[in-house]
């Protein structure tokens, strides 16, 4: 492991705020950056920040940021030692990791095997259960008949209730066939309603359906399967118990393939349609016992996977029962990583790079110290008063707060374009304080000093959330945001969005 030189040049295969953020750390470390850009991003702020840019294709992501050949080709042509994939796009794509390896380029992320194990949610569930983590009662319903569909797996007595042959899948597997429907009905009856129908290859809330009434099950399975097939090319679905109210709590991990440490919890319960809007670290109002069990569970799964790189284990926490269940592994840097950086003082991108350079972990668990509390708001180009209608366009003015305890990660400035082809994240505003109250006060003041003109934003909604008494108390559940939007009289229609 020793004697290896650090990277000289890294290709950043992403866009937006995370591209700008990765470039900044590379610059601080003396690493040259080449940014892969689609034609829509050729003049973006990250393109101006990077040492060089390499065009990888037309604006649609499928023809540029999702094109493995174009990304690896650009990295090779630029003479890059490594590729940083950011989040989203190809960040958890095992094919990219393998193609990089084949081209002699380091993929800054987990091994292809880990990416496959975590990217397939059925496989991830199986690994979690094998590592002793509690998984929700549930099982596979699509296509190939599992050998067992036990509904054990309550609390810490997790059992391996999924069949790998099913998870491996064969052509044309779908939850919509008759045998699948019969299995779904039987399984749901054993789990108990309401149940959640989930896509094995899913993400971003697509292919997810809550079913409260047994009569709706077959339709929900068929729709979720079709949606998953269209979105991910994989129609396999599975059922899990639907826990509500619940909180979304995750644990940040770093691993070097041998050793794994955790960097504490984050709470991401403020969500709309499974899209996170506010995150904080540490997760508030968890008993020390529960918090410790979450840390231990995440580390156990990381060790089981011989995890290498930065990653996150997501859990559903049942606040009333003080129980938690494994949800999924995100095998990449996450949007909300700055709140963890604020309370640990670590630069997670720097650690990702050090691990990818082949160095052993530079922090021991006992060295990880937590200081204070941090909260992040995602400022999106969308209009909460018009059903969260997306708002691409040209930024005419961008004023952000600066000062002690405030961090802003952004890719917009006056004159910048917000193209319609990508997600709507404009900036992340993070407030850090000695405790949650101080972090909240800092963040409230910070948002009051934000002004983004030229596109609609959700800034006002965030100001309302930070002033809301229930959020102020801490520990809200995943149903909180919808309740807040209703009480604050935000229009909730969809403007015909399908």
């Amino acid at each position, binding site marked *: 492991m020793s004697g290896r030189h650090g990277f000289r040049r890294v290709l950043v295969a992403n866009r937006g705020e995370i591209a700008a953020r990765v470039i900044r750390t590379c610059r601080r470390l003396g690493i040259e950056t080449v940014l892969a850009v689609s034609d829509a991003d050729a003049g973006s702020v990250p393109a101006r920040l990077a040492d060089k840019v390499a065009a990888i294709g037309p604006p*649609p992501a499928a023809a540029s940021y999702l094109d493995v050949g*174009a990304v690896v080709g650009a990295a090779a042509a630029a003479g890059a030692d490594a590729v940083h994939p950011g989040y989203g796009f190809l960040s958890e794509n095992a094919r990219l990791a393998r193609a990089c390896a084949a081209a002699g380029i380091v993929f800054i992320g987990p091994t292809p095997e880990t990416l496959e194990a975590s990217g397939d949610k059925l496989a991830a569930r199986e690994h979690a259960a094998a590592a002793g983590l509690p998984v929700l009662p549930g099982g596979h319903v699509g296509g190939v008949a599992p050998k067992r569909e036990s509904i054990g797996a309550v609390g810490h007595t997790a059992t391996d209730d999924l069949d790998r042959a099913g998870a491996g899948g064969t052509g044309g597997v779908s939850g919509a066939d008759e045998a699948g429907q019969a299995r779904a009905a039987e399984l749901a009856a054993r789990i108990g309603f309401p149940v959640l129908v989930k896509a094995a290859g899913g993400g971003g809330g697509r292919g997810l359906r809550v079913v409260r009434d047994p009569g709706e099950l077959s339709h929900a399975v068929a729709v979720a399967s079709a949606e998953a097939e269209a979105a991910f090319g994989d129609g396999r679905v599975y059922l899990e118990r639907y826990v509500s109210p619940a909180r979304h709590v995750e644990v940040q991990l770093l691993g070097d393939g041998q050793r794994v440490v955790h960097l504490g919890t984050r709470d991401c319960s403020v969500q709309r349609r499974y899209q996170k809007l506010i995150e904080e670290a540490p997760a508030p109002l968890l008993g020390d016992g529960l918090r410790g069990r979450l840390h231990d569970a995440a580390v156990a799964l990381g060790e089981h996977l011989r995890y290498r790189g930065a990653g996150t284990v997501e859990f559903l926490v049942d606040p009333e029962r003080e129980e938690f269940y494994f949800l999924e592994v995100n095998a990449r840097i996450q949007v909300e990583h700055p709140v963890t950086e604020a309370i640990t003082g670590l630069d997670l991108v720097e650690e990702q790079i050090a691990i990818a350079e082949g160095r052993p972990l530079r922090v021991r668990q006992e060295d990880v110290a937590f200081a204070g509390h941090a909260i992040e708001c995602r400022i999106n180009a969308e209009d909460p008063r018009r059903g969260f209608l997306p708002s691409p366009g040209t930024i005419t003015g961008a*004023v952000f707060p600066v000062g002690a305890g405030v961090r802003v990660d952004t890719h917009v400035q006056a004159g910048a374009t917000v193209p319609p082809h*990508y997600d709507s994240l404009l900036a992340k505003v993070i407030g850090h304080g000695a405790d949650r109250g101080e972090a909240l006060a800092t963040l409230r003041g910070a948002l009051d000093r934000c002004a983004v003109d030229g596109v609609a934003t959700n800034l006002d909604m965030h100001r309302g959330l930070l002033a809301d008494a229930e959020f102020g108390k801490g520990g809200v559940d995943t149903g909180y945001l919808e309740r807040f939007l209703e009480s604050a009289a935000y229009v909730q229609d969809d403007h015909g969005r399908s």
Partner: protein
Amino acid sequence: MDLTNDDVAEILALLDSLPYDELDLQTPRFRLTLRRTPGGWTEESQTLTEPVTAAPAPASGGPAAAAPTAPHPAAPDVPDQEGLVAVPAPLPGTFYRAPRPGAAPFVEVGDEVREDTVVAIVETMKLMNSVHAGTPGRVARICLENAEPVGQSTTLMWIEPA
């Protein structure tokens, strides 16, 4: 901007002790404006450096493969074309004729539509927005190919009113 957050913090620490409320700093590479407000300092920054292109990317498909990238311009302000009514894009984005790849198109030329018939999808920022006919009648013309980029209010198709 090439200044790090730490750089800005140090500049702020200097400014805080001085009687100034604004600092405007411009170099060929960046412009930074710091302002003192009642709630604290704000920052407005502009990175002015032009992007530097690395060695040209390997040609993947030649000019024939080049996809159209400029969105179609908004329709000229002509209220009708021989009595036809335009169906405009509700947002800039990508025009899709079918609910998913491989599926049958929502409508074909000659199809009858009601006011609320879904005739297309425009994908904007990863969200699918249904486009309704808006006028009862018959589809007279479809102006774009599937998956073409569209600007705000680009005419997607024309309806012959019933």
